[in-house]
């Protein structure tokens, strides 16, 4: 029984919808060209898209390359800049100016097993971990780019992602998917979701009694979750007891001068109500304050944000975004999979929204079932993989709050209560009281956050393992060699790399070469 999957209908024309369409159409290029597979994206003419954060992970480079979008075109069209990681200020203590740490994107070779972090713990250099074994923090502090104009597209001296204008990105993706990748586009409101007796979606009813039939449906309808939530009634699971934040006040600010340097990292500054992001694009900075409506009201937060920006709040045009932190109980049911906000959303602390879309779209495209009889098995696998990933994202975000020593509000004190910590995170923290995070702490092949990311946060926030021994001569030798090498690399990069704005100006003018 069943039939071949030949028509995939994506509902929603935001970043999630177009990225999914792009991944599917690029992965199955030949089938689409032969008319053996149709990718149809249906979007409402009336629904504005929600910009899910302006920061990407380094994964975006391979995503763009897969879709066949040139880096030069992407950077120019989307006003993109280079992001090399995040800088966290004020997360440890109340005073936000006194302490900061980085979560850089660069890999520290040989650190995955936790040995180099252990060396830091054993030699009283725990908080120096990120600079001892990596150049990227120093490069970010010097406001330098991760590459030179002579690097080919998507190549760099250091690992990097982007800051970008997501609205412009949506337009670029939409054009590229239609003109190059053969994605079909329908602009219409979905009036009804039609299902068969087993609960699978058969078609969408559009205006004028038109029906859009499909074999597989992708719900990219944003928070509304029109297909998976509304039609298939997959319940929403709140994560607000772990991650309290449910509101963001956002605004744009100008640079002091048109040639002001652009920071090459996302700033995340903690306040008594939550934290403030600061993301530099070429022409403006995107700034926002994330907080919990249960602990602070909009007026308080607006004042805090205006104070941070050193302006009068009356002069700022705030936009308020509310969200329910959480996810669907299942992300794939029957012949419907949710990608993007429709699957779930938690606060943007580690810019995990776009990367979850990329991972989901990639998994869907690579594991695309050919026949409907495969659906239950693929759905089971997909759900297991992505529910695991959601849990790891929640653990990792919560870690930033759990280790903070801030006590200037009930918000921060409640964040540390054992009852507000996921059990999985409690277990990890118990392990890490006596050992540094290592890759074997995480079983999946494609973990969202690697052991190194945990090492950066733990060392940054001063959660030092008690290893109860002296470093072995072998470890000392290996670590000192790595430190000397890193020092040399750091000096070279500081000398060679251009300023972030300088490089972006050159890319706008000359472009990057494909080789």
């Amino acid at each position: 029984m069943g039939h071949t999957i030949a028509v995939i209908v994506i509902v929603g024309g935001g970043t999630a919808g177009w990225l999914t369409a792009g991944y599917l159409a690029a992965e199955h290029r030949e089938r689409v060209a032969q008319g053996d597979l149709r990718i149809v994206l249906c979007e409402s003419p009336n629904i504005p898209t929600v910009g899910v954060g302006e920061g990407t992970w380094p994964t975006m480079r391979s995503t763009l390359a897969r879709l066949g979008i040139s880096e030069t075109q992407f950077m120019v069209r989307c006003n993109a800049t280079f992001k090399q990681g995040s800088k966290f200020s004020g997360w440890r203590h109340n005073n936000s100016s006194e302490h900061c740490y980085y979560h850089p994107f660069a890999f520290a070779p040989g650190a995955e097993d936790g040995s180099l972090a252990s060396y830091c713990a054993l030699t009283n250099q725990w908080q120096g971990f990120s600079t001892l074994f990596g150049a990227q923090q120093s490069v970010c502090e010097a406001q330098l780019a991760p590459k030179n104009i002579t690097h080919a597209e998507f190549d760099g001296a250091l690992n990097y992602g982007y800051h970008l204008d997501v609205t412009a990105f949506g337009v670029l993706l939409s054009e590229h998917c239609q003109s190059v990748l053969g994605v079909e586009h329908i602009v219409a409101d979905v009036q009804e979701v039609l299902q068969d007796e087993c609960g699978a979606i058969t078609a969408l009813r559009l205006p004028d009694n038109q029906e859009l039939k499909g074999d597989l449906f992708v719900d990219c309808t944003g928070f509304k979750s029109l297909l998976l939530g509304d039609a298939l009634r997959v319940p929403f699971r709140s994560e607000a007891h772990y991650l309290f934040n449910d509101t963001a006040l956002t605004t744009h600010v100008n640079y002091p001068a048109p040639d002001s340097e652009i920071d090459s990292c996302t700033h995340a500054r903690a306040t008594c109500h939550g934290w403030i992001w600061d993301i530099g694009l070429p022409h403006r900075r995107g700034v926002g304050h994330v907080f919990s409506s249960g602990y602070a009201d909009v007026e308080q937060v607006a004042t805090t944000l205006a104070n941070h920006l050193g302006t009068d709040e009356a002069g700022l045009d705030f936009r308020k975004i509310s969200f329910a932190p959480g996810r669907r109980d299942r992300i794939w049911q029957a012949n419907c999979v949710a990608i993007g906000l429709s699957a779930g959303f938690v606060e943007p602390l580690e810019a995990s929204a776009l990367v979850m879309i990329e991972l989901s779209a990639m998994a869907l495209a690579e594991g695309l079932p050919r026949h409907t009889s495969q659906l239950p098995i693929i759905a089971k696998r997909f759900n297991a993989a992505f529910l695991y990933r959601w849990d790891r994202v929640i653990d990792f975000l919560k870690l930033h709050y759990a280790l903070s020593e801030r006590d200037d509000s009930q918000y921060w004190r409640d964040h540390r209560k054992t009852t507000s910590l996921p059990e999985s995170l409690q277990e990890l923290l118990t392990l890490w009281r006596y050992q540094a995070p290592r890759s074997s702490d995480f079983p999946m092949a494609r973990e969202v956050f690697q052991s190194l990311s945990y090492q950066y946060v733990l060392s940054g926030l001063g959660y030092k393992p008690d290893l109860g021994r002296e470093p072995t001569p072998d470890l000392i030798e290996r670590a000192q060699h790595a430190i000397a090498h890193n020092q040399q690399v750091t000096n070279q990069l500081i000398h060679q790399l251009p300023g972030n704005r300088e490089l972006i100006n050159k890319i706008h003018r000359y472009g990057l070469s494909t080789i």
Partner: protein
Amino acid sequence: MRHATEILDSKKHQHLHIINNRWSDACYQADNVNVVMSELQNLVHDYPIFIAKNPNTGQFQLRALLGLKGGVNLYVKDGQWRAHCFPLDILSRPFRLFMPESDNMETGAIAIDPGSALISENEGEPLFQADGSASARLQRINQIFSALVNGQQQSAEFLQRLHQLGLIEPVSINLTLKNLPNAAIDGLYGINEDKLSALPSEALIECHKNGDLYAVHLMLSSSVHIEKLARWYEEQESDL
């Protein structure tokens, strides 16, 4: 030591002379120089020609290799230049072109490093005549810079056409020489001969008509000089 450059001025530099052919001077110590398309025909007889990226713009440029190791020019030995013809870039030294607007030749001015050892008040050729007009030597320098600037654009367009045809590829020069670090020969690009021979006939005819194919063959033929550089390099090492 690096000195600030000065724009050449017929009053300020009226008595300046320039010493010729002193190849041991520091300004000639380079392991590669920029080359323009019009020079290929001559230079391929003596120099290996490759493609590299302009460090300021990332655009492809033609480059002649003069050495294999950071800053060492193997063409200079015992104060002599071991080739019959010279890259324009070398002949332009110790002068430099100062272009405040990099794409506007009209704004260009010739500049000199006042600390250069090739400058003298009494030795060599004068730059200006008694009435302040340019000497024959300075006129030659003007012509060289003019050829370099005009050729730069022509060469960039030539290389862009090759790139669009997929003919440019990164190359690694593998030489087994003692004490040779790879750094000096990183970042080079060359012609992909397989792609060249597989070019569709229309593209090939087009390349032939506009002269690109000839230039490509000149470049390919020049790679034989790498062996000469390797030999010179080993001789120099054994002299040390």
